């Protein structure tokens, strides 16, 4: 019954109905992931958005894609982990919504890496709403548009209702270690190469004597410089096709 920003009852009720009525698809993830996918699809239609994604956030604000309204939007959502910046990361830090109505404009100042990369994927505006309960920051809901423009106040309120509904789906998880592990397993299984990134991280930590943070930064820097997917770079590191040097000289 938590309503994090006192979401107006009419929005909350309507969103609940739309999400419940959203049909499942055969290739949907199981359990929580699947429910979030249906929520993303319902939100896309309702908000007339290009795409919607939901990410979980670690206690340090690192995103983990939980669901998106479609495969291409999953890639957009993943950009934030690949580059270590973006709307849901910003929403985590800000403890509140982050609304960017023109990514091309914002790119230079706000997200020098994420901005152009997202624009290249067809995203021109992005609006992130954190999933928060009390002091705990669990994740964020990202709304993407393929043309620049601000969200109307109706759409902001509606998006908040979707964020709250996503939060409720997460809070439905039973509060025991097994249930939590199961959900995490499902999310990671659908995360498209995320596990390999962590493994590559571990390899670099030993290879180059780096901290976890520096190892991840090294992988990100290489992927960005060579315009490659971070999961592909990780695969190469693990297969020993790629040996990184300690410094960021781009080799």
């Amino acid at each position, binding site marked *: 019954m938590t309503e994090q920003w006192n979401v107006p009852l009419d929005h909350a009720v309507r969103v609940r109905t739309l999400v419940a009525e959203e049909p499942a698809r055969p290739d949907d993830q199981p359990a929580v992931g699947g429910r979030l996918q249906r929520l993303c699809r319902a939100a896309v239609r309702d908000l007339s958005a290009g795409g919607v994604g939901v990410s979980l956030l670690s206690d340090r604000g690192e995103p983990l894609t939980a669901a998106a309204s479609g495969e291409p939007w999953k890639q957009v959502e993943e950009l934030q982990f690949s580059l270590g910046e973006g709307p849901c990361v910003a929403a985590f830090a800000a403890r509140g919504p982050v609304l960017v109505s023109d990514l091309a404009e914002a790119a230079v100042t706000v997200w020098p890496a994420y901005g152009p990369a997202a624009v290249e994927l067809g995203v021109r505006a992005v609006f992130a709403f954190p999933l928060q*309960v009390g002091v*705990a920051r*669990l994740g964020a809901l990202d709304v993407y548009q393929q043309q620049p423009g601000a969200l109307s106040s109706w759409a902001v309120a509606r998006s908040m209702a979707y964020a709250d509904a996503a*939060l409720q789906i997460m809070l439905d*998880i039973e509060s025991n270690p097994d249930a939590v592990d199961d959900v995490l397993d499902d999310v990671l299984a659908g995360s498209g190469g995320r596990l390999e990134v962590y493994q590559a991280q571990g390899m670099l930590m030993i290879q180059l004597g780096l901290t976890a943070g520096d190892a991840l930064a090294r992988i990100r820097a290489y992927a960005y410089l060579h315009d490659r997917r971070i999961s592909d770079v990780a695969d190469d590191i693990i297969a020993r096709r790629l040996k990184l040097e300690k410094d960021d000289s781009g080799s």
Partner: protein
Amino acid sequence: MSMISSDRLAEVFVEFADTLVDEFDLIEFLQMVTTHTSDLVDARAAGLLLADANHRLQVMATSDERAQMLELFQVQTQEGPCQDCYHSGETVHSGDLREADERWPRFAPRAVQAGFLSVHAFPLRLRRQVIGALNLFSAATVEIAPGDVRIVQALADVATIGLLQERAIRRGEVLTEQLHTALNTRIVIEQAKGALAQIHGITPDEGFDRLRSYCRNNNLRLSQTALLVLNDPTSLPGLTTPRH
């Protein structure tokens, strides 16, 4: 009670709503609710019960020890105004407990014996959810005036919303922490797989097999050992010394 100033009443309402503070203490809050409502209607005694996870009422606060006895009694015998109130979600009262033997054969005589002649129970409810009951006793055969009944119920409603919100937030915070811990643990294990792969020139999956066997053979926890592989590998020579 109608002698209370509206200013003071407003203050009391605000206090009842104030559950979302860092230093919220459930027992203190419930004690405050019990004491204030008792004072407001000039009751002799008051008690507050909340249902536990098994839907059994538990005494959470009383205005004095004598009421404690009575409330305990109610819980034990599964009988009394609080039980009726909790199950019906409606207020329950008796203006003269001396005539309530049929209604509450075990509770009523004992209440009279303890010096209470009338009782009023208010549900702690939000919409269809009843989480407990608030019990007010008087030594006289008084009926609480309808206006005051409404005020006490309103206070109970405010307290209930506050309790439910605080509960939901606490649960959400706990769950988030569990998710964060599980994620961090999983990340460390994946990193350790990679570390072992690097050390031994094997694949991460093979690294995981070695990690698991090592933990099994030495009765160690996977998550802790994985962390040591990354932070203090020399402490686990059996696992981290390269061998072919």
